[in-house]
């Protein structure tokens, strides 16, 4: 019932892997960790991997939207990958697909950003 946040810099992309359950209780952690990495790091883009995210509610939508605004404000892009069907429905309902790019997995996300090694 807890959340783990894993981060990896890959060329110009910051890969963020969320594992466990993302809700209001831990959304501020995701915000703080990502905000810091975006400000300090030299990544232009964010890849958000939800492969091992078992649960997410609208508090997750809020924190993702916040980071989307942050990275696009710096001229970067955000790609979300490995979304399970339940989270897909939340994205759909909120019209996120109009602004977010989604990809099946990290590899495709990287290549869509043109940062594959």
């Amino acid at each position, binding site marked *: *019932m807890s959340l783990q946040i894993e981060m990896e810099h890959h060329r110009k992309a910051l890969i963020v892997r969320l594992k466990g*359950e993302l*809700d*209001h*209780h831990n*959304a501020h952690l995701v*915000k703080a960790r990502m905000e810091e990495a975006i400000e300090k790091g030299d990544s232009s883009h964010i890849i958000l991997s939800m492969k091992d995210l078992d*649960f997410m*509610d*609208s*508090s997750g*939508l*809020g*924190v993702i*939207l*916040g980071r989307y605004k942050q990275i696009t404000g710096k001229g970067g892009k955000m790609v979300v990958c490995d979304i399970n*069907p*339940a989270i897909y429905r*939340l994205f759909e*309902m*909120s019209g996120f697909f109009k602004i977010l790019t989604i990809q099946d997995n990290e590899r495709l996300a990287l290549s869509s950003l043109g940062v594959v090694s």
Partner: protein
Amino acid sequence: MNEANFMKLQFASKSENEAFARVTVAAFASQLDPTLDELTDIKTVVSEAVTNAIIHGYDNRGDGVITISAEIANDTLYLTVEDQGRGIEDLEQAKQPLYTSKPELERSGMGFTIIENFMDQLEVISSPGKGTLLTMSKRIESKKALYN
């Protein structure tokens, strides 16, 4: 499993109880033998309603009490989530997709929309200064029905 069963849960308005509330309602609802998708819908709805009570109802103070009741009658789960917090002034506005009164907290404004989508029925009763009561129901297409 056809006789009505019920439970009532009360807990402190602390964010660490959001996961606890989800697990509890899911454990109770599992008596209806829901699919994993249905169970995820129910967990999400509980999470939205409880989070709203904590953030909006009690302004993130941990000293409020949140009450959940659940009843299983035939193949339907009846659910209420209640707080004695600040209440909602303009309910129609509150229910608009993407509307939030706390954008500074990075709220998405999607809570009510999600609840309405995932449940068959939602009724909200709220009085400013008194609190908010959500009454919901969801029919579970019980897998057991095939055999009984």
